[in-house]
């Protein structure tokens, strides 16, 4: 299935009402790891809403991204508890280890790293999430091994 057909299919999961704009964009984000440029006109036509409206949503809501994310999205929780227990140091260490660019991505497209708002697992601070997997009480020492397990050929790279 090419992108356009796939996007069309996702948009049709919901009734053609403007209130489902966000839900459709979230599903597209989940599917492609970003909102491809061709998605906006397709969804706009389906919901009979201006593209500008969808563009506004895509830039307002943090869960949506107009640029592709890495294959593995690493979320470092920067909730207060994680912040107090060293989330900033984890980010610094990851940046150095992975040589992240200004947008927090690696140039091979394998990883993107983001500092995110509280993930609600404060008792396990600091928390890191790779894809859907939660890691609690992450230490600087374990970071390299953990990251390596997601590299190509690693045990967690599917």
């Amino acid at each position, binding site marked *: 299935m090419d992108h356009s057909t796939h996007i069309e299919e996702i948009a049709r999961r919901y009734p053609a009402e*403007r209130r*489902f704009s966000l839900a459709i964009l979230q599903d597209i984000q989940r599917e492609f790891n970003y909102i491809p440029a061709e998605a906006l006109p397709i969804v706009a036509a389906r919901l009979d809403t201006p593209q500008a409206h969808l563009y506004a949503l895509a830039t307002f809501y943090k869960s949506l991204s107009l640029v592709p994310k890495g294959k593995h999205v690493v979320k470092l929780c920067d909730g207060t508890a994680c912040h107090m227990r060293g989330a900033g140091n984890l980010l610094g260490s990851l940046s150095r280890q992975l040589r992240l660019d200004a947008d927090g991505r690696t140039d091979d497209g394998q990883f993107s790293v983001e500092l995110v708002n509280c993930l609600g697992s404060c008792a396990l601070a600091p928390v890191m999430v790779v894809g859907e997997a939660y890691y609690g009480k992450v230490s600087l020492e374990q970071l390299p091994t953990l990251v390596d397990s997601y590299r190509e050929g690693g045990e967690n790279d599917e």
Partner: protein
Amino acid sequence: MMSDNATSRTLLVCCGTGCLANKAAAVADALDAACPEASVKRTGCNGFCENGPIVKVQPDDISYYRVKPEHAEKIAASLGHGPVMSLLFRDADKKLVLRQADNPFYAPQHKVALRNIGTIDPLAIDDYLDAGGYRALERALAMEPDEIIAEVTASGLRGRGGAGFPTGVKWASARAEEVFPKYVCCNGDEGDPGAFMDRSILEGDPHSVIEGLAITALAIGAEQGFLYIRDEYGLACANVAAALGAAEARGYIGTNIRGSGRRLRLEIVRGGGAFVCGESTALMASIEGRLGEPRAKYVRSVQRGLWDKPTVLNNVETLANIPVIIAQGGVRFAEIGTEGSKGTKVFSLVGKVERTGLVEVPMGVTLRHLIFDIGGGIRRGRRFKAVQTGGPSGGCIPEGLLDLPVDFDTLTEKGAMMGSGGMIVMDEHDCMVEVARYYVKFLSDESCGKCTPCREGLRQMLAILTDLCEGRGQQGDIELLERLGATMKESSLCALGQSAPNPVLSTIAHFRDEYAAHIEEGRCPAGVCPALTTFVIDSEACTSCGACKKACPVDVISGDKDTPYEIARDGCIACGSCRESCRFDAVSAHQRKEALA
């Protein structure tokens, strides 16, 4: 013999997000395999996440902590023969604790909103029904709307999301509107960093929220409702979706509720990751598919909310209390708590306390009780410095105010607030200027940008606080922050902007010295701000254990058994990992004299 012992037993495996992170799912599977005759139940969060995964054996009432899949065989073999000692909790005196009720973390708690969590399987509606679930809804179906509202008013329940608005009053206003359709909403956009009670309730007892929402709908005359839940809370969304399906199949929601002819359609709306959407009007805009920006509230949303129709929005924890109030009566609920704040409150006790997790206590207990009795005091014997309550809208409370009762009004009088119940404990190694900078950074990222005082005020505050943390503070900065804060409080459009200065103003009020040290001496007393701090290893106290060397992210620590450990000035980023890793207090922070590399 073995199988008899197993058949009669239920193993409750905590499968909250915290325990799942510690491989609780594998523990449950291993227990399934090891004791096929016992009933293994996957429950919601027990709150003591740090010691997870937690497994409870019933009816023996034995609780195990930090259980790993490889312990399953041991647990299976022990059923009916006494506990596995090595998995029991040890209290501060190293005494083994068998029952959850005797655990110092749980003993002082009083569970109302969290009543079922950890004992029922959130995916099994029969578990909820066995625990008395949906009886309040049945009762409400036989009541007049005004009677329902009278019970809620009598209970004195106030909104648990932070604002503390009386729930009965809100419902009565919406009921009085003669405009239809009306809507009910559940605010599950829990955004305050450091608070996770709503996630826990949605994950662990979704039916209590659905029942609460259904009763709300009966009271105000709504037939449609929404549960707005953070997209990041994947498990919560999944469990609520499953619970909605089960509730509809049994007729507790849907087109003909329990044969009464009443109807209610509920659906989940996933949040888009914008903190401001926790604000009522922004949340409603988001449900409508618009940008989550708040509007001025000359007209309240109980009059004109979703699609300009009367709408009641209640927080998750508030809704979880409703079935209890209707089942037992409002007067009985009001027996718990203080004069102005009835019932219990769930707090997430996190940060530098010994025992972190989710706790539910009657309103009016003191901060000291929460932090020192339940939380077990400060980690590693350090000194308490402050507790941050109420998230980014709240403030920092110093030691001198620890005997204050925690309720809606007392903390607000002191410039903090109880808020949604996040309680982040800080010790002597936390810098209050940096804490203020952290919250302002968060808020400036999350400000929707609609009104100028909030958008620009936060940006300026952030610039000043960053300067302070990086050694560029100037005389007059503190006063400037205070003036900015006053303007923002007065002139911002919504609660986000109006309360945004609280973290700054409260830290200035209680820790002005620390601000002054940054400005006047270029010194960070807590040893946190890297530009002002340098670390030194005391060779007398150092035991050459090597922990700091392993913890150093930039490999600038040298030493071994024979050579004293040392931090090289060159390349050190002053992150403080060495100090945190040292068990012997051999690493100390000093004022940095030279520029940071």
